């Protein structure tokens, strides 16, 4: 069959197919898949019959349009993200339990070391923090200060919410992305934060301000610290897949690692949003610390039980 005859025979069908591809308002017609396969067939016929390059390009383009319409993703839906968090996240905790375990141990271990160090040797806090931030922390958690007083109105609640969202989730994402640099970008912030956290806690105990500090930190800390650790572990997995790809090529190994840690970073994101809400609108409330310790205990219990069940069993 000559090219022109082929074109004339099929051009009406092609036109129809192209219109279907471009029509995003209606759902796909029932016979779309059949038409698509027919177009694929046309392309291979055109290739084997050595029709002109421009006709082949045109059919190639139809196939591309058709497959991108046929295999289109779901788009950005909140429900997809929540499902990812509720179901796949737990499974992913189990799949990556060794990375999580390593991150948990190193974070809490180093925090404990720096805590004990600063308790025993109060001046050691200046090894971890500079003079200015030590002063800031002292004024922030001063029982006579501003953290938990009525002077902090709705205005500054929203301000702090913005700061927590921007800062904390930004750090988590930076750690996740930086982890691809052979883990370095994840490990350094993780260790830095653990030293910092331990040193600050000890310094505040040394000053005798522990009541406002721990009642402030305990509730949102459950979600926030765990999420940061999870993000660090996820980043480390990507970096480690490059360092030690095992039996795969590095390109394939990093792809598999990315697939496996995606639920972790989505989970960490959702946990950090929860933490930011708590931190901005609950932790700073001027109520007896007892309530805060109770909610803190509930949150810690919830987070740790999810973490334990996920890492141990991989399901709820």
């Amino acid at each position: 069959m000559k090219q022109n005859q082929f074109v004339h025979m099929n051009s009406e069908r092609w036109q129809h197919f192209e219109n279907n591809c471009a029509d995003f308002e209606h759902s796909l017609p029932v016979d779309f898949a059949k038409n698509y396969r027919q177009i694929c067939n046309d392309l291979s016929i055109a290739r084997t019959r050595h029709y002109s390059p421009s006709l082949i390009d045109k059919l190639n383009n139809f196939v591309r349009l058709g497959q991108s319409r046929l295999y289109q993703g779901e788009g950005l839906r909140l429900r997809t993200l929540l499902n990812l968090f509720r179901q796949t996240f737990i499974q992913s905790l189990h799949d990556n339990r060794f990375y999580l375990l390593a991150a948990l141990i190193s974070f809490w271990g180093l925090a404990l070391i720096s805590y004990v160090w600063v308790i025993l040797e109060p001046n050691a806090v200046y090894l971890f923090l500079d003079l200015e931030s030590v002063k800031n922390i002292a004024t922030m958690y001063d029982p006579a200060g501003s953290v938990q007083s009525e002077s902090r109105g709705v205005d500054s609640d929203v301000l702090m919410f913005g700061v927590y969202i921007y800062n904390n989730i930004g750090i988590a994402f930076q750690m996740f992305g930086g982890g691809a640099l052979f883990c370095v970008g994840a490990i350094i912030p993780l260790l830095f934060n653990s030293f910092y956290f331990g040193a600050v806690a000890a310094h505040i105990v040394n000053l005798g301000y522990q009541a406002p500090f721990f009642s402030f930190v305990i509730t949102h800390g459950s979600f926030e610290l765990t999420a940061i650790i999870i993000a660090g572990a996820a980043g480390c997995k990507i970096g480690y897949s490059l360092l030690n790809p095992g039996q795969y090529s590095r390109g394939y190994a990093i792809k598999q690692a990315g697939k496996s840690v995606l639920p972790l970073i989505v989970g960490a994101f959702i946990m950090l949003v929860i933490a930011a809400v708590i931190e901005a609108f609950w932790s700073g409330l001027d109520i007896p610390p007892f309530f805060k310790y109770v909610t803190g205990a509930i949150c810690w219990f919830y987070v740790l039980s999810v973490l334990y069940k996920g890492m141990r069993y991989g399901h709820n």
Partner: protein
Amino acid sequence: MKSQGLDNKIFLKLPEGVSINLIPAGITVRSCAYLYDFLIRSAIVAVVALCFQLLGDTGVGLSLIVYFLISWGYYIFFEVRDGRTPGKKKFQLKVVQDNGLPATLNHIIIRNLLRPADSFPFAYALGIITMAFGKEFKRIGDWCSGTIVIYEDNFVHNEIESGTEIRAPEILLSTEEQQIIIAFAERSSDLSSARQEELAKILGKAFNITDESANEKLKQMARFYVGQEI
């Protein structure tokens, strides 16, 4: 799977039993698209920050949230819809999976959360180096999520202008040679007549046609090959 020549087309086999070709987009055009997106993002952030300034502390908090959403969510929001941010749309680029299928939410999230690695230590230096080492121009985020950025040209198929005369060539030509003549005739509607004749003269030498009639004669041959009915 043929003609993997000077061009950088990649051929992908589909489950439908054909292979299609895609053209991965290189560093320059992607940088342009990035800058375009960057301008849009900066403009949005600036406008929002200006408006929220009136609200005092609440406004600062809100504009920080917006800044966070724009800097991390802009790409995810647009690319998850059809693989194109405004910048990519402007330069006719598109993100797809490396098997040619449209990228889903999972791919888009991974490829955009790995931007810190690509932008290490500054100005996407590592990403650019990584892109330069592969023929699919993948940055680290693309490697990790399994995506590529391709050109999405809206291809126009010119039919050969129909004429009254067709001419069978005196000598037998191979398939590739026939295709060259057909391609010349198909392209000629995009070319000026002077350029057509210039090209026809080069092509005509093979048939010992060196005078002005080469252009018309070649088109007549092309009509013969595509099987135009008189």
